[in-house]
């Protein structure tokens, strides 16, 4: 049996979300036109998360994808909390004071972030108080530390990542009197998540990456063709520098056991991640927390299991690698996606498919017969194929959905094969993970006009 095209569409579009940056006075002053995002689960429930928000007290927009493992708890927590940590890190001293005073005197708080969320993207109500207190502690420390220097985005991103991971770890060690919350903070800490976050402010694009999700810039060349520029490095065994880094951080005696079967300690694919305290805490700490923890935790074989050759923790860090890029008019879009996408598609194809989608069919290279020998039949075939490509573009109102359609449905010719797409989407839950991973994509579209103006001003 096959899913009908409309069934396929309803599956693909279930999680799609689009945001257009509003135009003021007819002038779009933001370098971001808007973004499309979507995710397709393979795990049940899905372990990927995504976030997008506009900073209200500073300029700029934050977007991120988070790939959870060993459950979705950590990815969920990071998706809720990380942007607050980043926003707070970016805030000037006066604003921090103002916020702290407001909390102190019970006044209404200045809003820090405006979230752009799909209805399916939820925030945990129960933990909000706990999370807020941790965050408040962070900004209180920042106020105390007042260096008087203007905030550097790179520093802010690194600090925010590290601080959040630290808070996750601490919350699990301290525990909570509420048994539900106590279990929650432990699940967050024992599961893990990678994060790939973009901060766009005018022409300044910062990518902070932890793990093996990826950020890619779509660039339109002068001849109209598309190319891809990587704005992040994967933190996994394929990255020599990462392997080198990990080896540097541990004694020579562990060199052989550090990376086995392309995994950290033979277990973990990403070499950097949030949570995953099993790769960060000492054996004693792990044992203590698990034993004093709730029964559910004790019954879980995974949490009790200590990685082999575990001698000099921590083996894992959440510290991101930050890349700064000055946007140029030819930089048309940014793709943030979890490894589910990059496993199936080459970045060059991603750049082309999104580029052609965003610019519409008008920019599809016109066919010219020129001096070639072309028969009516060949031309007919070519045109039919082009029309099929266009019609699949028209089916999607969302660049991320369009990309997922290609990622899942592409045949060997690089065109969407409905039969294949239908087969992949109708796999039963327990089989789906064997054929594909969760896919989460955010496509950010830039306003070349605005970027061009910035460039001229500089």
């Amino acid at each position, binding site marked *: 049996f096959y899913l009908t095209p409309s069934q396929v569409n309803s599956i693909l579009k279930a999680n799609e979300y689009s945001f257009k940056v509003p135009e003021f006075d007819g002038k779009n002053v933001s370098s971001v036109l808007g973004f499309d995002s979507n995710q397709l689960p393979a795990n049940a429930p899905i372990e990927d998360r995504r976030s997008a928000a506009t900073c209200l007290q500073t300029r700029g927009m934050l977007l991120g994808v988070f790939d959870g493992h060993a459950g979705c708890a950590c990815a969920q927590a990071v998706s809720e909390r990380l942007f607050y940590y980043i926003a707070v890190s970016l805030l000037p001293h006066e604003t921090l004071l103002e916020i702290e005073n407001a909390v102190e005197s019970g006044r209404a708080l200045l809003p820090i972030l405006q979230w752009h969320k799909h209805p399916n993207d939820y925030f945990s109500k129960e933990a909000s108080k706990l999370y807020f207190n941790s965050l408040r502690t962070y900004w209180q420390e920042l106020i105390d530390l007042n260096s008087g220097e203007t905030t550097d985005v790179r520093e802010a991103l690194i600090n925010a990542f590290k601080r959040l991971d630290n808070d996750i770890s601490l919350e699990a060690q301290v525990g909570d009197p509420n048994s539900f919350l106590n279990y929650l903070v432990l699940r967050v800490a024992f599961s893990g998540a990678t994060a790939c976050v973009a901060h766009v402010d005018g022409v300044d694009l910062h990518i902070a990456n932890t793990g093996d999700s990826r950020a890619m810039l779509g660039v339109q060349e002068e001849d109209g063709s598309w190319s891809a520029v990587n704005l992040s490095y994967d933190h996994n065994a394929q990255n020599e520098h990462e392997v080198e880094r990990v080896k540097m951080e541990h004694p020579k005696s562990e060199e052989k056991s550090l990376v086995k079967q392309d995994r950290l300690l033979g277990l973990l694919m990403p070499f950097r991640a949030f949570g995953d305290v099993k790769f960060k805490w000492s054996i004693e700490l792990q044992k203590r927390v698990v034993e004093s923890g709730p029964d559910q935790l004790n019954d879980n074989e995974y949490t009790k299991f200590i990685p082999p050759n575990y001698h000099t923790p921590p083996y894992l860090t959440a510290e991101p690698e930050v890349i700064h890029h000055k946007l140029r008019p030819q930089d048309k879009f940014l793709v943030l996606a979890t490894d589910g996408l990059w496993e199936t598609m080459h970045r060059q194809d991603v750049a082309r498919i999104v580029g052609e989608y965003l610019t519409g069919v008008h920019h599809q290279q016109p066919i010219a017969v020129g001096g070639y020998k*072309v028969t009516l039949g060949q031309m007919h075939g070519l045109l*039919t194929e082009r029309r099929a490509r266009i019609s699949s573009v028209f089916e999607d109102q969302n660049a991320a959905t369009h990309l997922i359609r290609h990622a899942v449905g592409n045949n060997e010719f690089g065109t969407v094969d409905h039969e294949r797409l239908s087969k992949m989407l109708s796999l039963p839950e327990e089989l789906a993970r064997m054929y594909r991973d969760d896919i989460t994509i955010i496509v950010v579209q830039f306003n070349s006009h605005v970027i061009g103006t910035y460039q001229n001003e500089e």
Partner: protein
Amino acid sequence: AARMFLRLLSDIQWRAAHPKWRRMTSSQRSTSTTAEPHPVSLPAQAQVVICGGGIMGTSVAYHLSKMGLKDIVLLEQGRLAAGTTRFCAGIVSTARPVSVELKMAHYSNKLYQQLEQETGVQTGYMKTGSISLAQTQDRLISLKRIASSLNVMGIPCEIISPKKVLQLHPLINIHDLVGAMYVPEDALVSSANVSLALATAASRNGAQIHERTTVSHVTIQKGRVTGVETDRGRIQCEFFVNCAGQWAYELGHSGEEPVHIPLHACEHFYLLTHPLKEPLSSSLPTIVDPDGRIYIRNWQGGILSGGFEKNPKPLFTEGRNQLEIANLQEDWDHFGPLLDALLRRMPGLEALQIMQLVNCPESFTPDMRCIMGESPTARGYFVLAGMNSAGISYGGGAGKYLAEWIVYGYPSENVWPLDLKRFGTLQSSRTFLRHRVMEVMPLMCDLKVPRWDFQTGRQLRTSPLYDRLDAQGARWMEKHGFERVKYFVPPGSDLLDLDHSKTFYKPDWFDIVGSEVKCCKEAVCVIDMSSFTKFEISSTGDQALESLQYLFSNDLDVPVGHVVHTGMLNEKGGYENDCSIARLSKRSFFMISPTDQQVHCWAWLKNRLPDDSNLVMEDVTWKYTALNLIGPRAVDVLSELSYAPMTAEHFPSLFCKEMSVGYANGIRVMSITHTGEPGFVLYIPIEYALHVYNEVMNMGQKYGIRNAGYYALRSLRIEKFFAFWGQDLDAFTTPMECGREFQVKLDKGMQFLGQEALWEQKQNGVYKRFTMFILEDHDTDMDLWPWWGEPIFRNGRYVGKTTSSAYSYTLERHVCLGFVHHFDEKTGEELVVTTDFINQGEYEIDIAGQRFQAKAKLYPFSSLFTQRRRKDEVELSGYQRE
């Protein structure tokens, strides 16, 4: 590479023709044209200046010079036949639905056939025939209708089976065909060379041709053309002919006083291939597959195939600077659906190698018919353009008609359907044209069923009651930009269904219109007729009466308050217009004409009224809303609303009085209807329109009043044998020929236009006679419905065509109106048509090849008139316009 090739396409033959051309003109050209672009200086003056060296311009020059005019100058901005003409597919096809277009194409074919012999220029003329394919039964019906009209014109044509198609053209896939029409005498030509041949002949006859000369604008003084400004100087002239093709609109607007020529260009694509392995014979018929939207002709052993896509690409909306014609791109993606259709039709061509996709802009008009004639605002300014991609088919005939128009004042055929004056400034908006041509171009291939309406460019002119009527279920059609109601869909009916009723058979509004007709006959209906053209003519002295007495055939010197039905005739006694004129006072008249007369009638009167500041003519069309109350209870409604007696003694028919209706005063009430039913027309100053309408509807309730539309009106007027100008009546029809002698006062004591011609007809008889036909063995439910243009047969011989038809709900029969001629059986010469000739014949009407018996009548059924009247009263109202 693309441009290189386009040059080749026509230059191969251009080179062959050119030496001859140059030799012929060398007497006028001192040096070679290639070395110096402008060897001969322009003359300071000429009688006729033609702008445009394409097929139209050269054809006009050819025919003018043939008619003996010597003083002709043709100006071409580039080189002869270098525009659309050069890229044209060169198909001469006579299968045209509009009769006058068919005649033009037929003449063109005959002209081109002998052109090579006449001029010595190779035209590439090849009689291949053409086959129009039908994939559906409806398409076959429309082909059969065309076949009927071709046959009666003596043009060979037959409906053939798919099998026969295969015999005529071995490459065709016939599996999805239900039939086809074969026209064996259709031809192929090299259009550029036809143009060169015409130019050669014209220049041999004395016409001067100047290439690389651009007309910047035309100068007009006191409403007359005085000359032409070009980049090489000025030429004074009496007549100017705008044959600038897709640039005609811009050229018309370039002068101080704009001449509105509503046309707009669209890209048009066709494909050229290399020869087949076994090259196609040059005599292989041309294939037209309207359901696939394509045409296919043989071309140098390969094929040439183009079509009319559903999503046309209009261009040059902003003017000529937008893009150079030579830079137009091939657009394969756009051509894709047409290529699909081509390979479906000729699957064997898969392996055929492509040579070129040609992008050749064509100009289209708002109603799919070409534009010819004289500007209504500038005398001597003629136009011939907007060929809707049939330039080669029409070129010869259109050029001939326009030349006749210039030389004799009017062409030898009724060309009203093509007359520039059917349009006004209101069709001149670029936005309107852009939207409309996007609808028109696909329509070239769409099935044309009776009573279809354009969907774009609508709701431009509306009555103040538009929203009220629309809310009550009105379905609209458009005339001269004005929205008019067809019928009212009763609440609860399936509206969608009705809107899609496209059929050659009984339409689904049948019962709806039937009930509206019934209400007109038994109670009272109200029809909004605001679209009619309304003029007021007044003077300080008797100038108005005197002038109108000369311009109209009926006697207008009637007591104040009387209404006269009269024709506005030309010298030959033919109807230029048919109108009602009310004498408002001794010195002022109120004139009502058909909607599409607004431009033509204005120009006709303007050109003929004396230039006297004390004589004023005003177009008051927009000032009045007209409501027609039809039916026996109209009297009751109106008298209750006005507290005035409206019975025949107090308000006889053909009477006009200003009175109050409800609270509104100054309503012009006339006791005329357009259907022969009793009733009134109320001319209401527009600010009172809604009030009066509401009052009428409220008061009418107890008399069973309801809204009605034009379809009901049509049925009523046709069953009563009322002719309608523009449909039944034209400039070639006199009152004598349509039983309206009573509207002509030959002895009114002064001369009037057309008087002599009518005298002669009165003495010698007429050569055609307007006749009513009642279809006898026609099954309304099962048989094809008549429309108009159906051939009439008398005793098995063709005698004429119908001009309109409708179902009569009273007679429960179809009624067709049309003209009967009397052709001599041996010579074909036209003879006088007598009453006996009409009465002593057995008649048949041919609907798409099927003949139905019909009874002919010269007078309407008197039983149809509800009120008993004296015979002359019946005759007095025996008139209808719309």
